[in-house]
């Protein structure tokens, strides 16, 4: 693997929130810090906490803390007290910091050598810490480790498996070329060395929706990353309003473009142009193909926004061809909807003539 030399001169610490390294002198630090950011909503928090407590190696080994971003609804503190029984500490921000501010506060407040930021609706599956400890103990220096993961819906039903990056546990080769192009890591599957955050800085609020992806790229540009092929974390995808609001405004892809731009500061100089171009194309194609699900569900309103965003990401031949395809597909679906509408108007007649042998 090519070593990527850090280029601190290219970005001042001012651009990425600094993480203080005062802890270095502290004698007895736990190995793990499981930091659970919360904000308005405790529906899944119990499940999340239990998933960690079920594999708790003890207070010397693991710090567990819920960091609430000054919620205005629900009472996470009461729940933490009830479930945690004194094992889980609770911190409430004096004022609302926003998602990314709260993540950085999680890092700042962590005591352990390795940080696991686990959102209030995600889950660590049994064995998560045990298997990732293999990575932590590995002889080769690494900055982060993640495992294969699952996407689940609001009810906890598993929906999809993440890509298998590598067959055996170990360091990912040429990982920067993968992660710089596409987001392959979800939060609950990732643990990061605190000293890595101290070196590269915290989450960047400019990247907003894509701040996590930008962070994983930044870490991968500076450190080797370990992969565990077992499925050990569950990420909850919401079909909720926030995601669709982002999608409707096109803000999600604006943030992705911003993240691509920010990464140019630290990606290896020899590859930066090619990687940015590839990333733009990959996200454009993603924008165009993922919108098909909406089209199938008869939601045509978002198609034009997506095409606009895709073309802003890249105008390669592939993207243009895919745009044309999407037009064709949408047209076909639209005609189908029209036809079925006229069908359902005269539905009674058709039903009585239903298909019989």
């Amino acid at each position: 693997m090519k070593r990527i030399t850090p280029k601190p001169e290219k970005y001042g610490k001012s651009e990425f929130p600094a993480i203080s390294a005062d802890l270095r002198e502290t004698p007895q630090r736990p190995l793990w810090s499981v930091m659970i950011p919360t904000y308005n909503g405790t529906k899944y928090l119990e499940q999340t906490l239990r998933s960690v407590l079920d594999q708790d190696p003890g207070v010397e080994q693991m710090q567990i803390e819920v960091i609430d971003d000054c919620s205005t609804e629900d009472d996470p503190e009461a729940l933490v007290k009830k479930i945690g029984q004194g094992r889980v500490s609770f911190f409430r921000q004096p004022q609302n910091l926003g998602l990314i501010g709260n993540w950085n506060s999680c890092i700042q407040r962590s005591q352990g050598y390795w940080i696991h930021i686990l959102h209030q609706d995600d889950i660590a599956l049994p064995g998560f810490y045990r298997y990732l400890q293999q990575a932590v103990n590995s002889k080769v220096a690494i900055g982060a480790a993640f495992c294969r993961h699952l996407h689940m819906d609001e009810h906890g039903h598993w929906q999809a498996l993440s890509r298998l990056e590598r067959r055996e546990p170990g360091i990912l080769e040429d990982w920067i070329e993968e992660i710089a192009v596409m987001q392959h890591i979800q939060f609950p599957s990732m643990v990061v060395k605190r000293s890595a955050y101290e070196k590269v800085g915290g989450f960047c609020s400019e990247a907003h929706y894509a701040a996590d992806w930008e962070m994983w790229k930044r870490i991968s540009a500076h450190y080797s990353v370990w992969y565990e092929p077992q499925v050990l974390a569950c990420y909850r995808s919401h079909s909720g309003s926030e995601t669709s609001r982002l999608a409707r405004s096109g803000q999600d892809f604006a943030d992705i473009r911003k993240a691509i731009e920010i990464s140019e500061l630290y990606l290896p100089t020899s590859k930066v142009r090619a990687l940015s171009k590839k990333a733009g194309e990959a996200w454009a194609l993603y924008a165009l193909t993922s919108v098909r699900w909406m089209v199938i569900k008869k939601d045509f309103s978002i198609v034009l926004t997506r095409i606009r965003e895709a073309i802003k990401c890249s105008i390669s031949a592939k993207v243009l061809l895919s745009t044309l395809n999407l037009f064709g597909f949408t047209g076909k679906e639209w005609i189908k909807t029209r036809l079925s509408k006229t069908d359902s108007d005269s539905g009674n007649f058709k039903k009585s003539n239903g298909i019989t042998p």
Partner: protein
Amino acid sequence: MEFNHPYRSQISATSKDNLRPLWSVMIPTYNCANYLRETLASVLAQDPGSEVMQIEVIDDHSTKDDPKAVVEELGQGRVGFYQQPQNVGYIKNFETCLQRSRGKLVHLLHGDDCVRDGFYRKLQRGFDENPQVGAAFCRHLYMNERNHWTWISHLEQSESGILDNWLERIAIEQRIQTPSIVVRRDVYERLGGFDRRMTCWGEDWEMWVRIAANYPVWYEVEPLALYRNSSTSLTGTSTRTGRNIQDFRNAIYIAREYLPEEKAYQLVKTALNNCALYALSTARQFAKAGNFSAAASQIREALLCCSSPKVLQSSLKLTIKLLYLSSVEKLLVKPKQKQLASK
């Protein structure tokens, strides 16, 4: 009920003593001792004790490995072992599994599949709460030879419980893999064993349809079973010759008898169409792998299943592709290889 079926073995009732275990985990094996280790370990990890659960490995006279040694090593006397005096074929071996089972609930777990923690506990709940159900199955995961998960089966409904309209859903496509399902022994006693008219494929599906036609079926939403789907499936002779699709077509016609008269026509038609689409996707994989004759036999079988516009269109497209690819190979690749060889 008088049981006299030319193609199905009778599963006779066991003695009605009170010492019968609740569970029978019957593990058929044939040349898969390396996977058997994991299979047994996954069962033994949730073993409720020998009074509650019979665990037995039934080997179809393996020639390449020694399942008995694995059973002795892992089972430490807890796991029974029976070996067929000669190879009887896998359907007959399944029959032996059913016949040798003594428990009230039979779990047929192939020697390369696994269960996940909680399988027996969760499925037992289904039978406890609903004594009328004939079978219960759970959502399941597919895995490859290296134990990596590759796919999650479809979620049949969002809550665990008795399935609605199950017969109509199972009658049109295979939705259950064997490690995920548990059947009451008296259901097998009443309906008989697996149908011998199928030789390589579809005998399991026919059984699940038969059960669905006679009993309610319970579903567990948690994925608690692992089904090994090896990528070597393309190398089997039955797939290369199209025998698998012939078998499945047979199974569809056999299962037709159980379907409600007014819906049977439509269900069979849909099932045949699904079967044809499956054959075409296999054909596409064969074409990609360069095995043109196997691809052609899959296309042939697809057309024998069904001639819906979609199937016709895909078949035509694929046939043209095949002709193109094979002529390219004949005209360009082979002469070049010859040239290289002669040099």
